[in-house]
């Protein structure tokens, strides 16, 4: 056991005596240490945490710094810049002079730092609130997706037979479905109606709709590899040995199968979050994700479409936020995968 554990860790130049004094580190500790040593992954995690902290200051920023309420329009508002009072929405001076243009970036933290959108709302304040929603939807849908996928994949793989046949066929159909179209179809139908399933009531326009839709459409992506892993674990030597020793099957499931599946699931967490965040922004961009007056980074890009040439910052800033966040999640995800590497994990087995 100890030999195989050291084989997955990096070559460690520590003195031999030190290793012998304390008990060999468990696989989780080994993986964690490896992850901490990964500079790129740690830097990505740091940036991600900073983004989360920044967004969680949204209510504080809106009420105490910018003194604005970013969920209602402010067409006749005024703002003081360099001692001069200016309207938030200006009469357009370009072209025929028809229509209006919202105020551009003031680069002043006390109001309209990134300018206003066409409703006269502070873009930075909306971006912070929108970031909270984007992050929340990405995380919650990831948890839902992994939960469903784990239950389905483990059930299908462990019990086999009829259950496996039925579940696998269902997963096959959803898998073959163009994911994006499935998400769009579900969103169109559900987004404007409230749903009651037993005691659970989801109101129209609730954030839970995109969360569930995004979570569910990606289930086959995770459930299928999990099922495959459980199948191969079931035939692995340590499980066969446990079966031979007469260990009851619920104990095998709990002690041998689940710990291995758990590492695979953890590897998927940051990568799925990145994917879900992009999917959420796309749905919101098509106005079938987060519903107004709530914001997400995707809806702000949508708001910025009509202002793209006059006030590009409205669309640019949230897109940049998505790109940076997704990038940190991808880099961190790569680090987690390298640290936990399920493939070499299978060799060390459960307990």
């Amino acid at each position, binding site marked *: 056991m100890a030999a195989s554990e050291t084989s997955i860790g990096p070559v460690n130049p520590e003195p031999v005596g030190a290793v012998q004094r304390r008990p060999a580190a468990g696989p989780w500790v080994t993986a964690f240490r490896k992850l901490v040593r990964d500079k790129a992954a740690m830097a990505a995690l740091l940036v991600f945490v900073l983004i989360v902290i920044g967004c969680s200051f949204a209510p504080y920023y809106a009420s105490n710094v910018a003194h604005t309420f970013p969920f209602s329009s402010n067409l006749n508002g005024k703002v003081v810049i360099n001692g001069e009072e200016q309207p938030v929405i200006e009469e357009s001076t370009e072209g025929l002079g028809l229509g209006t243009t919202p105020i551009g970036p003031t680069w002043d933290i006390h109001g309209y730092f990134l300018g206003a959108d066409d409703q006269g709302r502070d873009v930075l304040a909306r971006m912070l609130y929108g970031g909270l929603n984007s992050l929340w939807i990405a995380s919650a849908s990831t948890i839902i997706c992994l939960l469903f996928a784990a239950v389905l994949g483990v059930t299908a793989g462990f019990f086999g037979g009829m259950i496996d046949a039925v579940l696998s*066929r269902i997963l096959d159909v959803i898998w*073959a479905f*163009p994911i994006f179209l499935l998400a*769009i*179809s579900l969103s169109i139908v*559900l987004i404007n109606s409230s749903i009651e399933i037993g005691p659970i009531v989801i109101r129209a326009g609730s954030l839970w709709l995109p969360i569930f839709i995004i979570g569910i459409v990606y289930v086959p992506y995770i459930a299928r590899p999990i099922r495959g892993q459980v199948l191969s674990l079931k035939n692995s030597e340590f499980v066969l040995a446990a079966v031979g020793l007469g260990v009851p099957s619920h104990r095998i499931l709990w002690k041998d199968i689940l710990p291995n599946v758990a590492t695979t699931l953890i590897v998927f967490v940051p990568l799925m979050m990145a994917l879900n965040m992009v999917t959420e922004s796309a749905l919101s961009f*098509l106005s079938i994700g987060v519903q107004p007056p709530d914001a997400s980074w995707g809806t702000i890009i949508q708001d910025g479409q009509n202002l793209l040439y006059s006030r590009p910052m409205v669309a640019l800033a949230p897109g940049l936020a998505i790109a940076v966040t997704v990038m940190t999640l991808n880099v961190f995800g790569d680090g987690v995968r390298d640290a936990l590497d399920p493939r070499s994990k299978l060799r060390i087995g459960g307990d």
Partner: protein
Amino acid sequence: MLNTLIRRLIQMVFVMFGISVIVFLIFFATPGSDPSARIAGRNASPEVLAAVRKDFGFDRPLYVQYGLMMKKLLITFDLTSFQNRGQKVVPQLVQATPVTLSLVIGGAILWVIGGIVVGLAAAATKGSVIDRGLMIIGLIGISMPVFWLGSVLNLITQSRFHDTWMFSWVPALGYKPLLENPWEWFKTMIIPWTSLAILYIGLYGRVLRASLIEANEEDYIRTARSKGLTETRILFRHALRTSLITFVTLFGLDFGALVGGGALLTEVVFGLQGVGKLTYDSLKSLDLPVILASVIYASFFVVGANFVVDMAYAILDPRVRGR
């Protein structure tokens, strides 16, 4: 071989049937989504509602509705729009298809070339500055939302730098048919192609690099090396060839997914009247038959494409046949 073919064919039909049922149920049997209420408008009286229900056949049992819908969609091709009554849906789709195909095929050519170049360059210079730089650029490409990248490109080429020598050649947004004026077609499509390809160049470059580096550890590469072949020859003739198998599989799936709706966002941003834009427009007016038709045809295309990829695989690689 014939057995595999028949088995996969049956599987494909089953999956298509499953998809059509799911789509139908989503649109016509989801609680709270009464299509007749939508057609009749907001404050419709119960009599009007009942009339609409009867008129469109929503009062019949679900399986009859499903059968009728599929017959109109796949056999007689006379499914009509709810919004503009009389407007047939299938011809609309057929009309929009060339636009989507030009977008996706052009983008695909760009990303395959780009992906191979990036992957090869990075793998050949593994660990160097070039490798790191390429992988970071690739990562940035993967992380940008495609509709946002499209907007940024529009901002640059249509507005901010449109009057400079760099982008003054970029025509206004919209599609120009290939057969009418190939040169104009080419010019309008370059920016959308680039926008679509950037994401996939990053993705494919990374995948190809990883698979080339993995191949480098294989026995047959060691054999090639011990025969005294040059590194260039090993990379191109031996490592690249096997790595391309992953590449081709991935390509089949992505190409299918893009034609089947994945290019929707790019079409919307660049104002190209393709299948995706059609779906998007009917999405705004909640014109269910159009959405239903495009979703079902797109899914069928994806399933069909996957089938072709699988079969091509079985023909190319004898090991797959036995499974």
